[in-house]
């Protein structure tokens, strides 16, 4: 097979168009809440749910954590699990 050097102007580029998020929807909050609800339905303890966001080794959840901060995640976990789950 012929070896070719990479070319910086190679047209093999990511050209996907981003679809608009509906007005008034906070996409980070929506996704984080979906994920936390799924964790809750799996009976995952709330502190473990927080760890899934805080750990950089879970890139999807950690991206939201990085963008919005830990307080944002804690708030969502508190909303889903309720105060009965105790302080996260």
């Amino acid at each position, binding site marked *: 097979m012929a070896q070719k050097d*990479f*070319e*910086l102007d*190679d047209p*093999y*580029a*990511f*050209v*996907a*168009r*981003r*679809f*608009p*998020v*509906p007005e008034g*929807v906070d*996409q*980070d909050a*929506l*996704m984080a809440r*979906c994920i936390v*609800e*799924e964790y*809750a*339905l*799996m*009976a*995952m303890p709330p502190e*473990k749910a927080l*760890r*899934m966001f805080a*750990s950089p*080794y879970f*890139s999807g959840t950690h*991206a939201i954590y990085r*963008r919005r901060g830990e307080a944002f995640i804690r708030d969502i976990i508190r*909303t*889903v*699990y*309720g105060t*009965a*789950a105790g302080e996260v």
Partner: protein
Amino acid sequence: MPRVYNWQLGRQMDYRFETGTQKRQFAAVFNINRCIACQTCTMACKSTWTFSPGQELMWWNNVETKPFGGYPHHWDTKLLALQEAADPGGQVWDARAPTRAAPYGTFVGKTIFETADGVEKQATGYLPTDDEWKSPNLFEDTATRFSPTGATLPEHSGWFFYLQRICNHCTFPACVAACPRNAAYKREEDGIVLIDQQRCRGYRKCVEACPYKKAMYRPTTRTSEKCIGCYPRVEGTDPLTESIPMETRCMTACIGKIRLQGLVNVQPDGQWAEDRQNPLYYLVHVERVALPLYPQFGTQPNVYYIPPRWVPRDYLHQMFGPGADDAIARYTNPSRELLAVLQLFRATQKIIFSYRIEPGPKTAEFTIDGQKREIYNDTVLGFDSKGNEIVRITVNEPFYERPDRFAMNTI
């Protein structure tokens, strides 16, 4: 042309052949919410069935990133545009209260059979170009561009989801209707749609007609091929199974446990016969949490999807019909029974014909939007075709978290 009843559309429609000889139907449910697009299903299929010369670009199973991805490229938007052009403004649903015979209301637009002339073309469709079959994941999770200092994968901050696709083994297959040689046919025993390689002459009418673009041309044999539903496994004739029907390769390989496949009993009119304890019947007809893909095309596809809950509803209505709202509501706030049945997904390689639930203790309680939710650690039991127990699994499962010291294995 015979009139048939399409329950997904809630009405009768024209189709080239009569129904009524089929006993059982291959069907599956995919939970989109849990797919991570690892493509294990894709490779399981590829390494079993399409690894030979002429099949290089043939992916009977593929997972594409929606809304912008597709294999072949833009397969769904192209057909939606053709249908809209044939019936401008008319492709709409009359969403009524669900009934057994019309669970999603009535589709008042035209199917792909109804927008075709029935003489030159049996179904509206198109032949994708060679280019469109290439690179099943082009423009999806690919690196943005080459960089001498290292590349990063794109981080999606807008909505998207993964769509898992195989042949739908439709009740009214467009490939069967379109084949001038009657080489494409639907099996009586399990509804699996096959192409007889001896009869096929490679006219590619099936490739053109299949709305899901799951019939593919093979240049080395000059015939068309398609997903065969791993029929030796479904029949139970695979040496591994000891005559017990087994799920297909793509289903059993799913590490995300998003897939459940089986056989459902059908009535002479093509509707599913009531079978309350069959997990597929339960998910599709009782809980109505799983919906067909583009039911408006009219082929009555037999792969059902639990829609992704975070995606804008307009998009989901177009893709899954008016049942999407109710399906998401039920999935988001699942019943005790649904939570248990979801555990059956990919819990065994054998086909589950029926299930039973043994009640367990309450293990969690929380409130979402003022609504109390309780989790019970019920045990769900699955049974094979002979009524033997093949799986027993609880709702609560242990959690395994990869230790940080293995982080170097991450991508």
